[in-house]
């Protein structure tokens, strides 16, 4: 069933604009979107949560037109690369932030503890956020976004500031939590490992346009655009790929 459908979206921000973006995401999908810096990926995510005004096109969530709906009524969560935790709140209050309007204190505590346990941050709930490690901060940010059970979760390079080992751990943790909560995700990343391990769909953006949106296999074998083939590798005359995109990591193959 289609959860998010975007039709011919066009949004302007100063010199930059998103042109004619169309795609749809089904419930339970995990999409990873790649593209060069400045391709408009973050901007697209912010347009989906609703903080930029659309010039043209429509956005549907559950087949309901939300193009002109204010962000607070959309129920779409977002996690940024720089985690953007509220500096004036401690870990618990950061996570509980989105619950305050709907749930009484007791219920809030239950929910926060549940999600904190799943993300293995239940031991740091009382800490202020400025002495957390990068990985901890990112887990708090994810916890804050998913504790309210958003209909759709958007993530903007959540792992890119982490060291490789932490990234590896986070990736597995995230996969488990996402599956447990049966969440639909649109995730920006350039990391092939993310695509192999997490995604069932992959997208590639370039200069404000969505060049291709498909399964990873299709992107690898049938790139629709030169830029896509540059990123994912292009079959050469001799059947070998130029610019090697790493194969699925062997260690996790059976787990997947």
């Amino acid at each position, binding site marked *: 069933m289609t959860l998010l459908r975007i039709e011919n979206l066009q949004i302007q921000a100063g010199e930059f604009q998103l042109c004619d973006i169309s795609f749809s995401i089904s419930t339970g999908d995990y999409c990873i979107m790649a593209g060069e810096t400045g391709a408009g990926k973050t901007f697209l995510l912010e347009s989906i949560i*609703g903080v930029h005004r659309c010039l043209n096109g429509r956005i549907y969530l559950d087949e309901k037109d939300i193009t002109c709906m204010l962000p607070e009524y959309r129920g779409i969560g977002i996690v940024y690369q720089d985690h953007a935790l509220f500096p004036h709140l401690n870990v618990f209050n950061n996570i509980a932030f989105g619950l305050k309007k709907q749930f009484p204190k007791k219920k809030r505590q239950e929910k926060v503890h549940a999600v904190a346990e799943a993300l293995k941050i239940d031991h740091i709930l009382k800490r202020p956020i400025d002495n957390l490690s990068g990985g901890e901060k990112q887990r708090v940010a994810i916890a804050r*976004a998913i504790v309210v059970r958003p209909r759709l979760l958007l993530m903007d390079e959540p792992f890119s500031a982490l060291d490789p080992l932490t990234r590896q751990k986070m990736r597995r943790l995230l996969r488990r939590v996402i599956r447990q909560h049966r969440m639909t995700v649109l995730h920006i990343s350039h990391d092939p490992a993310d695509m192999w391990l997490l995604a069932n769909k992959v997208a590639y953006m370039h200069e404000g346009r969505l060049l291709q949106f498909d399964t990873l296999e299709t992107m690898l074998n049938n790139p629709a655009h030169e830029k896509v083939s540059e990123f994912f590798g292009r079959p050469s005359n001799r059947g070998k790929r130029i610019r090697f995109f790493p194969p699925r990591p062997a260690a996790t193959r059976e787990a997947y």
Partner: protein
Amino acid sequence: MQQLNIFKLILIGITGLVTLLLAITIGSLLFVPSLASIRQNLGSPELLYSLKLSLCTASAATLFVMLLALPVGYTMSRFQFAGRRLVKTVLDLPIAFPELVLGLCLLLFFGSDHVAAALKKVGIELVFTRQAIVAAQIFTALPYTIRIIRTTFDYVSPRYEFISRSLGYTHFETFMRVALPMAKKGILAAAVIAFARSIGAFGAVLILAGGTYMKTDVLPITLFLNISYGNLDLAVTAGLVMLAVSFLAIYIFEKTEADL
């Protein structure tokens, strides 16, 4: 041996010289009167009156300035709209404006018969009164305060607000729960500057409120009046009180700025 960086030495030298010059100039205020006469003047009813009046009016002005500067500063920091540049220019204009000109503008506006009559209906009289002092102080301090608040909000990434809104808070709730607490220190600094500017406002206050002795004489007016009276000691004492206020303001400002 380390080679000499002459350019750096010259720069440091000039900085030291300018600092020394400022310190001596400001310090000269300290050496004019005797300590006894300062103490005596500090207790004089004249000075106490103007100190009290200054503190009251500047507090009221600061309150109004903050109530106005917060929404305007936030708007200028966050929103793009048609005519934004023009609005920005108009808001910044009074900074480059001599205070006397501002006072003249205020007198012409608030003094004009229609405006004065309309204001009188709601119990406000903005010429030759204490309310006029507050009004003049507001207009003097407002542009500076708006600038500081705008810069403060510029430093708070809008992403925090996007997140808050995605979590179900309306824009207003987000402003109260995220933008305001995150800009807390900058807002405090802005309030301090607003207060200091209000205390120091002279030209606009003189023209709009008239500067009547023991009625609308705030500290700078007391200083000015006593120069005219030839009572230099009291003038200097008023100057010292204002100096103390500025020192305190800059100290708090620097402190909050450093934490920002």
